[in-house]
C-alpha cells in the first residue's frame, strides 16, 4: 500500500453496527425501567401474602393479643366488630386491597393506624440507616480497595479477618459492647436514646419539626443541640454500620481482584498504566456495578439490623416499636409494620437497580 491514510474502509463483510440505536428497538434503558417497575407489584404481593398467611395460622389476632385478659363474650364482640370472623379469603382480599391503598391496619393495643407509625417513627429509623450507611461506605469501600491492592499480603489478610469479625458479631452484641466500653466504663458517650430530654424539649417547640433529629438540630442552630444529637448517634451508627462495612469490604475486595485479572487490565498494564491507577480507575468502575446491586440487598440487612440496634439503644424508631408490639403480642401491628417494610424494601431495590443500570453503559446504548 502506498498511501498513508487508508480510504475509509467500511468493511464490506464486517459492517459496523449502525449509529446509536435508541430509535431502532426502543430505548433499552426505558424498557428496563418499565419491566423492573412492573416487577415491584408481584414482589410486594408475594411478601405481603406470606406475612398474612403466616400470622393467620395462629388464629385471629384479637385472641392472640387479648385472649387471656377478656372474657369469651368480649372477645367474640371485638372479633366481630373488627371483622375477623368473616371467611379468611374475604379478609385476605380486603387486606391486599388495603395494602395497595396504603392502609396497613390499626394496632390492637393502642388503636393507631400503622401508617401513622411510619410517619412518627420512620424518620428515626431512616436517620439510623443513614448513619450506618455512611460508616459502611467510609470504612468498607476504601478498606476493600486497600485489601485488593495488597492482595494476599498481611494487610489484606488482616483486613479480611476484620471484615469477617464484623460480620460475625451480632449487631446487638456489638451494641452492648460499645455501650459497655464507651458509656459505662469510659462514660464519654450517652447510654441510650436519640437525644437528651432537654434537646427533645427544644425540638418540640420547633415549627417545622421533621422527626429527623439532625435536621431539627441544624434548624435549632445551637452547637450544643447538634453535638448532642451526634453523640447519641455514634454508638448505634457504628454498631449497625460496621456490620455492613464488613460486607462491603469483602465484596469490594473480591470484585476488584476479579476485575484486576481481566484481560483489559492486563492490556492497560501493557501500555504502561500504573498499578495504582489500575486499581483506582479500571477496577473501580466495572467492579462498582455489582456493588450497587448489593447495596440494595444491604438495605434489607440494615432494616433487620435496625430492629435489633434500636432495641439495644432505645432508639425510638420503627424497629423499636416493632419489638414493643412483639412483646405485647399485638400481631396486627406486627403484620402491618412488616408489610410496610416489605414495600419499602421493594421500592428501594427498584431505585438501586435503576441506578446500576444507568451507570452501566452496556444497558444504555
Amino acid at each position, binding site marked *: 500500500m502506498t498511501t498513508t491514510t487508508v480510504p475509509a474502509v467500511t468493511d464490506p463483510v464486517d459492517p459496523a453496527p449502525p449509529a446509536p440505536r435508541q430509535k431502532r428497538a426502543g430505548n433499552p434503558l426505558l424498557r428496563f425501567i418499565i419491566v423492573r417497575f412492573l416487577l415491584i407489584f408481584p*414482589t410486594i404481593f408475594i411478601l405481603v401474602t406470606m406475612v398474612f398467611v*403466616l400470622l393467620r395460622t*395462629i388464629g385471629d389476632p384479637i385472641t*392472640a393479643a387479648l385472649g387471656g385478659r377478656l372474657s369469651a363474650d368480649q372477645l367474640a364482640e371485638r372479633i366481630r366488630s373488627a371483622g375477623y370472623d368473616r371467611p379468611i379469603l374475604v379478609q385476605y382480599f380486603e387486606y391486599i386491597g388495603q395494602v395497595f391503598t396504603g392502609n396497613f391496619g390499626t394496632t390492637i393495643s393502642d388503636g393507631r393506624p400503622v401508617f401513622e407509625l411510619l410517619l412518627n417513627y420512620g424518620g428515626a429509623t431512616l436517620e439510623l440507616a443513614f448513619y450506618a450507611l455512611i460508616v459502611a461506605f467510609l470504612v468498607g469501600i476504601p478498606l476493600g480497595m486497600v485489601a485488593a491492592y495488597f492482595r494476599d499480603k498481611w494487610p489484606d489478610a488482616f483486613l479480611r479477618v476484620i471484615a*469477617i469479625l464484623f460480620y460475625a458479631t451480632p449487631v446487638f452484641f456489638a451494641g452492648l459492647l460499645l455501650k459497655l466500653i464507651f458509656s459505662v466504663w469510659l462514660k464519654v458517650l450517652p447510654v441510650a436514646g436519640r437525644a437528651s430530654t432537654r434537646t427533645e424539649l427544644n425540638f418540640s417547640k420547633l415549627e417545622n419539626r421533621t422527626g429527623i433529629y439532625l435536621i431539627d438540630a441544624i434548624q435549632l442552630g445551637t452547637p450544643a443541640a447538634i453535638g448532642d444529637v451526634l453523640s447519641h448517634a455514634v454508638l448505634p451508627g457504628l454498631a449497625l454500620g460496621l456490620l455492613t462495612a464488613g460486607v462491603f469490604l469483602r465484596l469490594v475486595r473480591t470484585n476488584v481482584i476479579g476485575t484486576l485479572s481481566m484481560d483489559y487490565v492486563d492490556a492497560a498494564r501493557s501500555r504502561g498504566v500504573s498499578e495504582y491507577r489500575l486499581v483506582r480507575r479500571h477496577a473501580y468502575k466495572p467492579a462498582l456495578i455489582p456493588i450497587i446491586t448489593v447495596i440494595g*440487598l444491604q438495605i434489607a440487612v440494615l432494616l*433487620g439490623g435496625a430492629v435489633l440496634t434500636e432495641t439495644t439503644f432505645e432508639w425510638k424508631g420503627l424497629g423499636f416499636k416493632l419489638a414493643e408490639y412483639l412483646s405485647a403480642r399485638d400481631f396486627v401491628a406486627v403484620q402491618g409494620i412488616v408489610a410496610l417494610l416489605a414495600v419499602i424494601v421493594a421500592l428501594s431495590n427498584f431505585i438501586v437497580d435503576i441506578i446500576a443500570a444507568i451507570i452501566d453503559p452496556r444497558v444504555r446504548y
Partner: protein
Amino acid sequence: MARATEPRRLTTLWHRLPVVHQLRQSVGLQRGMLIAGLSITVLFLLTALLAPLVAPYGFAQLKDADGNFGAQQPPSAEHIWGTTVGGYDVFSRVIWGTQTALAVIIVAVVLSIFAGVLLGLVSGYLGGWLDRVLVVIADAVFAFPTLLLAIVAAIAISGGQSSLWGGVLAAAVSITVVYIPQYFRVIRAETVRIKSEAYVESAKVIGSSTSRIMFRHVLRNATRTLPLIFTLNSSEAILTLAGLGFLGFGIEPTAAAEWGYDLNRSISDVTSGIWWTSVFPGVAIVLVVLGITLVGESLNDLADPRLRTRRRASVTPAPTAEASAVPGGSLDDAVNLDTLEQTDLVDTTESEGLK
C-alpha cells in the same frame, strides 16, 4: 521442558476428599485462614457433643448442694464466668448453648438444602413459566430482611410459646423459609450455566431422558459450590437464632440454653456495669460464626483459580509434582501455560451469600 507425561494419579480417597484436597493445596495466609477456621469449628463441634461432660452445671440449674447460686455474681472460683440475673451459671449456659446452636444449624440446613437444591435444579433446567414464577418468588423472599421474616415465621410456628423443641423448630423452620431461596438461586444459576455446556447438549442429542440428564449430569456438577453456601447458611442460622432470642423469641431458660436469650436478659446489666453476663455469650457467638465463615472464605478462595495463591517457582524444577486427580479436577482446566490466569465474569456469588 520438563512437562508431565503421565500425571501420577492420587487414588486414595483421603486425598480426594474436598476439604483435605484444599488443605494440601493451599499455601501461606490462605492456609492459615483455613486451619484457623477449621480449628474453631472443630472445637465448637466437640463442645457441643461433649457438653454434659464439660459443663459444671445444668443449663437451668439454680442451686446445688451449697445452696442457691445467687444472681449477678461476678466471676469466682465456683462460677468461673459468674452468674446471670436469673441466677444461672454463665459458663454452663454458654457450653450448653453450643448444643442448641448445633441443633438449629442441622435442622435448618437439612430442611433448606433439599428443597432449595431440587427446586433450583428443576426450575433452572426446565425454564418456562414455572421458572419465571419461582424466580420472582425467590427474589422477593431473598430481598427481604431475614430477621423480620424469621420473626413472622417463628410467631406462626410456636404461637408465641417456647418449649425446647418448639423453640428450636421455630427458629430452624423460620430460617429455612428464608434460606430456601438462597440455595435455589445459586443452584439455579449453576444449572442454567451448565445447561449450555457441551456435555449436556451431547446427552440431549443422544436422547437421554430429561430426568437422567438433570440428575446424572447437571446436578452433580451444579453442587460444587454447595460447601461454601453451606457454611454461609450455618453462620447466618446462628446469627438469626441469636437475633430471635434477643427479641424475646428465644427458648425459655428452663428448656435449653440459648445465647441470644441470655444477651436479651443482660441489656439492663450493662447499664450497671455488669459485663460477664453479656460478654461471654456474645463472644461465643462471634467465635463460632468466625470459625465457620473462615472455612467458607478459604474454600471459596481455593476453588477459584484467580484467587488462589501458589508457591513461588524454584528455578531448578524437579520433574513435575503430582497432578490433582480429584474427579472433576480443580475448577480450572488442565495446565495450559499460554493462557495463564483465565478470566471469568466478575464473581457475584459472594454478594448473594452475605445477608
